[in-house]
């Protein structure tokens, strides 16, 4: 029995020890963390803050993870590639971004335009003086957005007349029909669905959609960012166009023009319709195309906590400075 109790004694001591240890660590770390903290942020007091919320005016930057299309869009509009500050927090989804920014008074982040701002305790910021909205994005006034552009091959450059007709029908469906616009909108693309015409009326001009098209295969190429919106539209189109087949091979905006109208169009990677998450450049002329244009916008909204009284409006330069850690204090942004 004495032999036994020796080991048991130690065990219970360890148990009590860990309990005290964990409590001690919690309280101890609280004390020590107070000192190194101020080194992170400049200690100058915010002088010209209009109405100063409680606590520090340090800016907390939130970013989406590096695989996110929203992040790619945001960074390409604001104009930086890999200069995001090391102090940023990464969040995994749009919902999480909304939740975290809504819980942090010092936060700044960006979400898609379809986010519910009020419910998440967020304040959407105007960009260059324009409030974000679907209308302002479609009209081009709200510029924290990028166009999703499409182009087809040249007329007569399709392998068959049928193919050319079905592509023409697809373009009409994607850009004019209520069903197509709805699909794009639900996939996050900004379009005015109310401006659409029901496909029932439109399809009279495209007789090919009434036959069985399961032997036809539309191939798409170009930007990866457009994938969700285009896939949604194609899936909807398939139902309305005699079960036409499609293959998506999205590799990057550069290939959108090259594989449809450029050097690679007759190669093994040639496509029927190409996409870019920007406007086609001058050296990518689309005059020959059967059809080309912008089918939707990808709009991003910069958000802060609802209680943030420093800013209502940001410019491109503000955002660049904040996200690359050149500006670290809300009072500086407010100036």
């Amino acid at each position: 029995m004495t032999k036994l109790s020796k080991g048991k004694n130690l065990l219970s001591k360890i148990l009590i020890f860990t309990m005290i240890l964990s409590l001690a660590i919690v309280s101890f770390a609280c004390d020590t963390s107070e000192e190194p903290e101020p080194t992170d942020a400049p200690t100058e007091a915010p002088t010209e803050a209009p109405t100063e919320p409680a606590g520090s005016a340090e800016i907390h930057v939130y970013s989406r993870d590096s695989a996110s299309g929203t992040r790619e869009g945001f960074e390409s509009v604001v104009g930086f590639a890999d200069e995001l500050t090391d102090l940023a927090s990464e969040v995994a989804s749009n919902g999480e971004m909304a939740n975290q920014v809504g819980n942090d008074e010092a936060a700044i982040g960006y979400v898609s335009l379809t986010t519910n701002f009020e419910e998440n305790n967020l304040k959407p910021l105007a960009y260059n003086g324009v409030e974000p909205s679907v209308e302002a994005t479609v009209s081009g006034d709200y510029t924290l957005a990028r166009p999703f552009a499409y182009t087809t091959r040249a007329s007569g450059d399709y392998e068959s007349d049928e193919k050319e007709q079905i592509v023409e029908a697809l373009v009409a469906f994607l850009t004019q029909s209520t069903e197509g616009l709805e699909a794009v909108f639900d996939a996050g693309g900004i379009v005015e669905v109310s401006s659409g015409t029901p496909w029932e009326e439109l399809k009279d001009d495209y007789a090919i959609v009434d036959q069985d098209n399961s032997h036809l295969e539309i191939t798409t190429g170009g930007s990866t960012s457009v994938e969700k919106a285009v896939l949604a539209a194609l899936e909807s189109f398939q139902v309305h166009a005699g079960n036409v087949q499609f293959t998506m091979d999205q590799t990057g905006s550069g290939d959108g023009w090259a594989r449809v109208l450029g050097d690679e169009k007759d190669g093994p990677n040639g496509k029927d319709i190409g996409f870019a998450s920007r406007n086609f450049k001058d050296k990518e002329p689309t005059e020959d195309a059967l059809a080309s244009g912008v089918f939707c916008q990808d709009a991003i909204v910069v958000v802060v906590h609802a209680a943030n009284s420093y800013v209502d409006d940001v410019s491109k330069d503000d955002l660049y400075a904040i996200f690359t850690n050149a500006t670290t204090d809300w009072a500086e942004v407010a100036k």
Partner: protein
Amino acid sequence: MKGRRYLSDRIFRGIFLFAALFAAAMIVLLLVFVTVRGIQPFLPSYPERQSILPFLTGMRWRADQGVYGVGFIIINTLVGSILGGLLALPLAVLSAIVIGRIAPPKISQALTTVVETLAAIPSVVYGVFAAGKITALVDDIASTFGISTYGGSSQLAVILLLAIMTYPTMTSLTISGIKAVPLTLDSASLALGATKMETYFKVVIPGARSSIFAGFSLGLGRAFGEATAVSMVAGNALIGPTTSLFERTRTLTSTILAGLHETVGLDYDIRFSVGVVLMIIILVTNAMIFGVKRHFDKKAEGK
């Protein structure tokens, strides 16, 4: 008659053997698969070849810049999981004593149900709870010290969350361990003049130590492996290591998970490497727990 019985016996033995081998094969398959994928980025044939030392000791994780360093993530994961586990352990053992020895049968039954229900709650539910409540609590604590947090997303929030999540696993195993200690031992201890508390701490707990250690290592396994809930409260810092409980952190699992479905190439493959690191950490930690347990076993046997 005898022959047929013998035959069915053999058939069933074969089935059982197959089941056991199948389970073992799954583990081997998983280990091989993850390891083979995980070492790819470090092989000379890989287009964007990574060096292993900067990967293991790096203090920055910047996927956008092609900088992958898991050094600080390893430290943060170890600190978060082990502190979370240690916080849950005393709570688990004490509540197991209440359930296994002190409480009357009806209450003990009710409490057991509660603990088992806790263990069955999916982790994302804990995550939603933690992202709303634990982070708010941590933010409040921090602001009383005058520290500004990222909305409460911090190492402390991770530790508290993991303590809550590992507690049910540890408790249910400890309960079964305590129930397995014969009541006659308690009577003997009490008859020798020990108080009830002395009996619980010096007879019952040491008697159940196998289960306590098993519970602790299973609990730690859950802590190490938890991804969804943790990434919701960790803040996912890009640099580290985290030196204060109120700073943001990043764990191996949340790093593997973030953006997994949308990425390709090196950024995808490197996640398998992170998985290999995680498996090694879990193996080493389990070996250490086993070592500590051996130590207690030897003490108890008086060797």
